[in-house]
C-alpha cells in the first residue's frame, strides 16, 4: 500500500532509529547470502526493523535499513511498498488479518468478518480507538484446508467460527 501524505508526515514525526541489536540481527541474515548480494537481506531486515518499531516502518527506518545494507534507499521503498506485510503507517498492537478468498468465503468467512467488526467496532484497514487492534482483509493465507483462516500477528487461527473469534480476542484482552 502506498503511504498517504498524512501517513508519511506521521511517519516522519516518529524519530525511531534502527538499533544496534537490530543491525546485529540483520548482519546475521547477511551471512546467509553471497557477499556481493547484500540486497537479498532486505526482506528480513525490514521485518526486524518493523518488529522493533511496534509493527510499522518509518521512512527513517527504511533509510537506516538501506544505509546498513549499502543499497539505494528507493530500492528499499520499492520492497516495503510492494509487500502487504509491511506497514508504513501506525498500526494497532495486534494485526488481525482475515482471509476472504474463495475457500474461506465458502466456509463462511463473512460471519467471521462480521463478528470481528462488531467486536472491534472498526472496519477493514482501521485501528481501534485504544490502538490495540488493526483489522485487515487479506488474500489467501495458504491454509485453505482449514478455512476460514486468519492471521493474528504471527499466529494462524484456523477453522474459525464467530465463537472462536470471541475466545481468541477475549484471551488477548
Amino acid at each position, binding site marked *: 500500500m*502506498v503511504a498517504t501524505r498524512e501517513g508519511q508526515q506521521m511517519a516522519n514525526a516518529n524519530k525511531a532509529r534502527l538499533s544496534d541489536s537490530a543491525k546485529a540481527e540483520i548482519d546475521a541474515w547477511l551471512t546467509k547470502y553471497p557477499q556481493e548480494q547484500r540486497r537479498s537481506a532486505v526482506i528480513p531486515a525490514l521485518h526486524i526493523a518493523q518488529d522493533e518499531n511496534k509493527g510499522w516502518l518509518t*521512512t527513517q527506518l527504511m533509510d537506516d535499513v538501506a544505509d546498513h545494507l549499502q543499497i*539505494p534507499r*528507493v530500492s528499499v521503498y520499492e520492497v516495503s511498498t510492494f509487500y502487504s506485510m509491511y506497514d508504513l503507517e501506525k498500526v494497532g498492537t495486534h494485526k488481525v488479518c482475515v482471509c476472504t478468498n474463495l475457500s474461506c468465503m465458502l466456509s463462511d468467512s463473512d460471519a467471521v468478518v462480521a463478528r470481528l467488526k462488531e467486536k472491534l467496532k472498526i472496519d477493514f484497514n482501521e485501528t481501534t480507538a485504544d490502538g490495540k487492534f488493526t483489522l485487515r482483509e487479506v488474500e489467501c493465507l495458504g491454509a485453505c484446508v482449514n478455512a476460514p483462516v486468519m492471521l493474528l500477528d504471527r499466529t494462524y487461527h484456523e477453522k474459525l467460527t464467530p465463537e472462536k473469534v470471541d475466545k481468541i480476542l477475549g484471551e488477548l484482552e
Partner: protein
Amino acid sequence: MKIEIEIDGKKLQVEQNSMIIEAADNAGITVPRFCYHKKLSIAANCRMCLVDVEKSRKPLPACATPVTEGMVVRTRSKLALEAQKSVMEFLLVNHPLDCPICDQGGQCELQDIALGYGADASRYDQGKRSVADKNLGSLIATDMTRCIHCTRCVRFGTEIAGITEMGSIGRGESTEIGTYVEKSLSSEMSANIIDLCPVGALTNKPFRFRARAWEVLQARGVSAHDCVGSNLHIHHRRNKIMRVVPKENEAINETWISDRDRFSCEGLHSEDRVTTPMIKRHGQWEQVDWQTALHVAVEGLQTIAQTQSPSHIGALASSNATLEELYLLQKLMRGIGTNNVDHRVRQSDFHYQQATALMPTLPVAIADIEQQDLIIYIGGHPQFEQPLINHRIRKARDNGATVIMINPVDLKHNFDVSDKLIVANPLLPRALTAICRALSEQNPDAKTSAQELLQSVTADDKHQQLAKQLLAADNSLILLGAIAQHHQQGGLLHGLATLMASLGNSRVGLLTPGANATGAWFAGAIPHRGPAGLNVAKPGLDVKRMWESQLPAYLLLNLEPEHDCANSQRALKALHNADLVICVTPYKTAAMEQYADVILPMAPFTETSGTFINIEGKWQSFTAAVTAQGESRPAWKVLRVLGNLLELDGFNYVASTEITDELQALTANINSDQQINKWRYPSQLPAVNNGIERITYWPIYRSDNVVRRSVPLQNTPISDAPVIAMSQTLAEELTLKAGEDVVVSQVDTSITLPVKIDNRIAGNVVYIPAGFAETAALYESFGSVNIERK
C-alpha cells in the same frame, strides 16, 4: 557468430546472441515498443513488441526472445497484430486522453503507436486511475497519471546515471513510478529520462508549454561546455531557442547529453545579455553604434601600441570560444606585434609549457575509454567536469576495468572505484613521483632522465602496489582532471603523469576545461606557439604574467575574468588599473561595467557559425541556429573588422568557413619533429608550504558564462551556495564549527564563507568553489589562505 532467421519473409543473417527486436531494428523492420531501449537492460514489461514466432504456441516479446537458427518471425501476422492491439488497449485503459494539453503531443511514442495499433474508441468506460504528480526538481516536469510503467527512467538511473533515485512504488494497480520521498534528482545526466519517457509523464520543465514539437525548427549544434563535444539538436521558433535535445552520435555522446548541455540554453536570454555596443565616456556607459565602438577600440589599441609598445597589450579568451574566433584573436595580436595571447585562464603553472604536446588530446577515442583495462584518474571529479567522459569511465568499470583515483579529496563517484590514493593537495607531486620511482624499480628496462628526482623520494607499499597494477595492464590510460591541471604545480603534475606513462607502458590524456581548449592550442591562442604549433621567436606573456604585469590594455574574448580566472582578484586589479579594457562578450557583469571601457556584444555559440575541436581531436563545425540577438555579432566578424580597421593583412574573410579552411590547410604543417614532450625534470620536488592551502574547483553549473545564467540549473540540488569545506581535524585545530561564518583571506583581501565539515579532504587543505560573486575577491586558486573566526 551469425545465424539465419527470417522476419516477415526476409532472410537475415544475425548475431547469435541478439534478440528478435535487435535483428528487426537492424533490418529496418518496425516492431512497436515502449519499455525496450537499446541502451538499457531488457525489462519486457510493456508487452507491446509481441510478435508471432513459428512453432511457439503464443506470441513472444521480441525484446526478450533470443534468435535461434531457422527461426521464422512474423511481426504483422493476424496473431501478432491481435496481440499488439490488445496490449495497446490495456495500456490505454488508464492513460488519460489529454494529448491537447500534453507537452509530449506530437513527439509521443504512445500517440504514434496508438495511431497504428489503437482502436478508434475505447471499450473501457469506468473511471481511470489518477496518480499524484511528483516534484523531481527544476529540470523535469511530471504528469504521473500518464505513466505506463515502462521503467525506462528507473533503469536509466541504475544503469546509466549510476544513482538509483526512481523506483516502482507499490504494486499491481497502485504501482507508481517515483521517488517515494520528495526528492529532486541529483544526477548530472538526469534529464535524459525526458527523452526516454515514451509518454508525457516526464517532460522538460523549463520548456513546458513553450512550443509544440511541430512548430520548432531543428538545427545541429555542438555542446559548448565540456571537451566532449556532445552533438545537439537545437530547437528554435521565430528566432528564439526553445530547447536542446541530444543528437545521437555513438562515437561521442551515444544517445545522451548532460543536463548542462541541455539546459544551458536557458541562460541565453538572460537579462545580462548585451545587444548593443557600449563605450564608457567620462565614467558613464553609452550605447553607441558599431562604428563608434570599434573606432574607440581600435584607436585605443593603436595609441598604446604606438606610444608604449604592442607588447603592452594582452588578449585573453575563454576556451569556449570557437576555433575561428581564437584563430582571429591570435592573428590580430600577432598582427599588432605581440604574442600576448592565452586561453588557459584557470591554469596556475606554466613552467613546462614548452614540453607539452602541440595540443591536449586523448590518446584514445572517447568511445575506446570503455575498452581500457585500467584507468588512473588524477586530480578532479570526472562526473561534474566531463559528465560523458565519466560515463565512459563508468562503462569501463562495468566492463571489468580497474579504475584508480589519485585525488586530494576523496570524492564520491557514481561507480565503485577499484583503488584510490588520497593525499593532501600539496603532496600530489610527491605521490606521483613515488609511483614513478616504484615503476622504475619494477620496470628497470625503462629509461628515464628523471633518476635524480626519483631517488629523492621513497615509494611505500601503496605506491608499489599501484605501480604493479599499472604495469600489469595491457591497455591503460592516465587521465588528468581539473584539479591536476589547475594545481599550483600543474605543469609538473602533467610531466610526472607523462613519466608514469612512459615507465608504466601507458598513455596520458588531459580532460581540458571548456569546449575548445584543444582548438585553442591548435589555433595558436597560446603565447609560446603559433597556429598548428608553429614556433614563435619570443614567447609572449602567459595568463598569469599578463595579470601580474598589469598591462595598460586588455582584450577579453567571451570571458568574465572575475569568475573564470585562476587568480580572479589579481585579474580584477589588473583590469581596474588598465587604461583600456575591450570586452568582446555576450553578457555584461557588474564588475565588467567597472573595469571595461568598450563592450562589443558577441553572439553565443547558438548564434554563430564555428568549429570546436573536442578532446579526441575531432573537428565539429556548426552553423548558427538563430541569428544574433539585437546588434550583437558573431565574434569572428567582430575580430575580422577589428583586423581591417587596424589595417592588418589577411582579415578579408567573407564566411567563417574560409577561416576553417585556412586552419584545415595548416594541419599539414604540423611538424612532428618539434621539440615537444622533452620534459626536463627537476632534481628534486619544490618545497611544500606548511600553512593552509586552498583548492579551487568550478562547480558543474558555474563553469562558464552561459551556464551560470541558466536559472533551472542553478536550482538543482547539485548547485550549492559557496562554502569553505575542510576536514574535522582542521576545523578543530582552528576551533571552528560546521555552519559558522569564517573570514578567508589572501594577501590583502578577505571574504566570508560558512564552514562545511568534509572529512574527505586530506591535510591542511580547504576546498572552495569558484565562479561565484562571493569568491571572486580571492587571489590564487591554489595557494595559501588564512582563516579566522568572524
